[in-house]
């Protein structure tokens, strides 16, 4: 009686499609050919859109951004499991998921070219990029609470964040609120092994990031984040639970940031090329393509056609980026408040007058 066991916990890892393309058929999710091909297409578009953007950045045609290459699976496969009624609340490395939600690639470019206009897109219930690490996880919990309060059983909120974000207090407050409220939230941690220069093992002493949910009585699982099938299955299960009133889940998706943190970063200062090379072997696109091929859904010809199609789509986005200029300079005055106030309008007038003079002078 003096030393009583009170509670015990276990964290498990899910992998369905391994890096060699081997499949665990018992766990294979039931996805239609159309869904599988959409997933592959979106991941491929994200990869190509990302790589093209790196060039644009080097040419000064967009500003600083965080490449997503290598991390296409967690956002895209999760978004595939979502419906239009679910909320998508990302951080800044979820390009594939935003594309799956219907955000135009051009919006992503325009945003990263320093225009708020890049955040004005029609994709349903999809919030723009959130830069402050960890903060957005709380918004997801509030969105989920609102849905629950209104009896919208078909609505959950899905939020994404990195391994580094699990150190921020906001992340824990979000998990805790979600646990207490049994709010329909899916927390997806993209553990890409690095937070800028800080490796995962120096971010926290915990052996897994999934176990952070134990602190808040929230179920959690680790998945191979380069395995789109595992991510999909875990996300689907978590979403089903959320929709069914079963509350939140944390999914740790183990993946890797193959590029620099952002285009301002030089990763050779802090990590080994060998490590990066090792992770290239686990490229989610290669693995998924093999899977599609084995299912008879894919071949070289289709691949060539897709590549051509994507090339055109990316070119179109680049053209849209180039066309996106000349937006009204005084928009910040227009959108700072939802009501008009003399003090603001007078500053706007002063601003515009100054611009006019400056343009002439």
């Amino acid at each position: 009686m003096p030393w009583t066991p009170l509670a015990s916990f276990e964290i498990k890892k899910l992998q369905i499609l391994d890096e060699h393309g081997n499949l665990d058929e018992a766990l294979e999710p039931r996805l239609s050919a159309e869904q599988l091909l959409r997933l592959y297409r979106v991941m491929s578009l994200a990869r190509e859109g990302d790589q093209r953007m790196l060039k644009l950045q080097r040419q000064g045609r967009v500003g600083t951004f965080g490449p997503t290459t290598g991390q296409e699976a967690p956002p895209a496969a999760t978004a595939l499991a979502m419906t239009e009624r679910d909320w998508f609340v990302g951080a800044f490395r979820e390009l594939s998921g935003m594309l799956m939600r219907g955000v135009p690639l051009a919006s992503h470019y325009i945003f990263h070219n320093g225009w708020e206009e890049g955040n004005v897109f029609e994709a349903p219930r999809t919030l723009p990029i959130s830069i402050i690490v960890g903060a957005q996880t709380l918004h997801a919990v509030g969105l989920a609470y609102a849905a629950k309060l209104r009896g919208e059983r078909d609505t959950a909120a899905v939020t994404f964040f990195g391994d580094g974000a699990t150190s921020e207090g906001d992340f824990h407050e979000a998990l805790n609120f979600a646990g207490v409220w049994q709010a329909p939230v899916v927390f997806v941690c993209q553990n890409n092994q690095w937070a800028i220069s800080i490796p995962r093992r120096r971010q926290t002493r915990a052996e897994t990031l999934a176990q952070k949910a134990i602190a808040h009585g929230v179920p959690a699982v680790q998945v191979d984040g380069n395995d789109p099938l595992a991510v999909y299955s875990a996300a689907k299960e978590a979403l089903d639970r959320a929709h069914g009133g079963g509350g939140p889940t944390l999914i740790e998706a183990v993946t890797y940031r193959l590029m620099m943190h952002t285009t301002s970063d030089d990763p050779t200062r802090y990590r080994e090329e060998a490590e990066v090379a090792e992770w290239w072997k686990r490229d989610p696109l290669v693995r998924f393509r093999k899977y599609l091929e084995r299912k008879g859904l894919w071949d070289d010809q289709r691949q060539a056609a897709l590549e051509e199609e994507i090339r055109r789509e990316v070119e179109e986005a680049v053209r849209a980026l180039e066309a996106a200029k000349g937006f009204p300079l005084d928009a910040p005055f227009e959108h700072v408040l939802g009501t008009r106030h003399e003090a603001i309008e007078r500053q706007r007038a002063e601003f515009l007058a100054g611009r006019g003079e400056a343009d002439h002078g």
Partner: protein
Amino acid sequence: MAKLNMVQALNLALRQEMERDERVVVLGEDVGRDGGVFRVTDGLIDRFGEARVIDTPLAESGILGTAIGMALGGLRPVAEMQFCGFSYLMFPQLEGHASRYRSRTHGRYTVPLVVRVPYGGGVRALEHHSEAPETFYARIPGVKVVVPSGPRNARALLVSAIRDPDPVVFLEPKRSYRAFREEVPEEEETLPIGRAQVAAEGTDLTVVSWGAMMRPALQAVEAVRQRRGASLEVLDLLTLAPLDVGTLVASFRKTGRGVVVHEGPRTLGPAAEIIARVNDEALSFLEAPIRRVTGWDVVTPYFQREEAYLPSAERIERAIEETLDDQ
């Protein structure tokens, strides 16, 4: 009409808005079963249930962060910070997100919410319970800051704040919570956000204040008026952001002299901005330096020294006299 104190008036506003609009929810520490440590949310949980009157875990960033999500999701959350000194924990969510979703998305997503913050001194409280943080919030573009001074305007302003499309920090002068009562009509009343009120008209000098300081300010004005028959104008700002510059400037153009009263430290307090606005638009009308009767640039002292540090009617009186006497 019922005679209500400010706590009751705020409670009335919340009750009626929750009845009128089912999107309105209340959340915070101890706002439910306990009715809030000041009882502003008293009885709401019995009327509207636990789902709309939410006793949250103890985490201020969590409270505002989830309130932002609720607002994005179509609710109208009214969050409570238990005391001013703990409200800073929600500052990053306020500055980083509540104030920005509108401008970030050019209006596609907005965050209509209210954060109620009991603030200010005079209730013999522990450390961190008596601060006056107006500046921190009024300095954030995209946030409105409202401060009632009495039960009636508190009720009307809270209703307006709840219906406002923007995030509103609603500072409740806790010293005024139970200090006095006013007639507050049962029927709906609102007051426009962004407008100051002329609490008394006059031509010799303008006294500007808000919140709990309105009472010593009015006392001081009355004393000076009686003693020397001066004609003193008094402005109750009611909104600190956006500032009602028009009313301020008009008054100073008329009187040419002024005293601004607030509890927080002098440096970078709202009085500084008011003086700067007068400098911008009414400098040539000024006959004397505007005096600031404010807290000092020190850490808010524990309560034994508090009264000595808070602006008092005597200090305000002296400042008015000196400013009137200035050549």
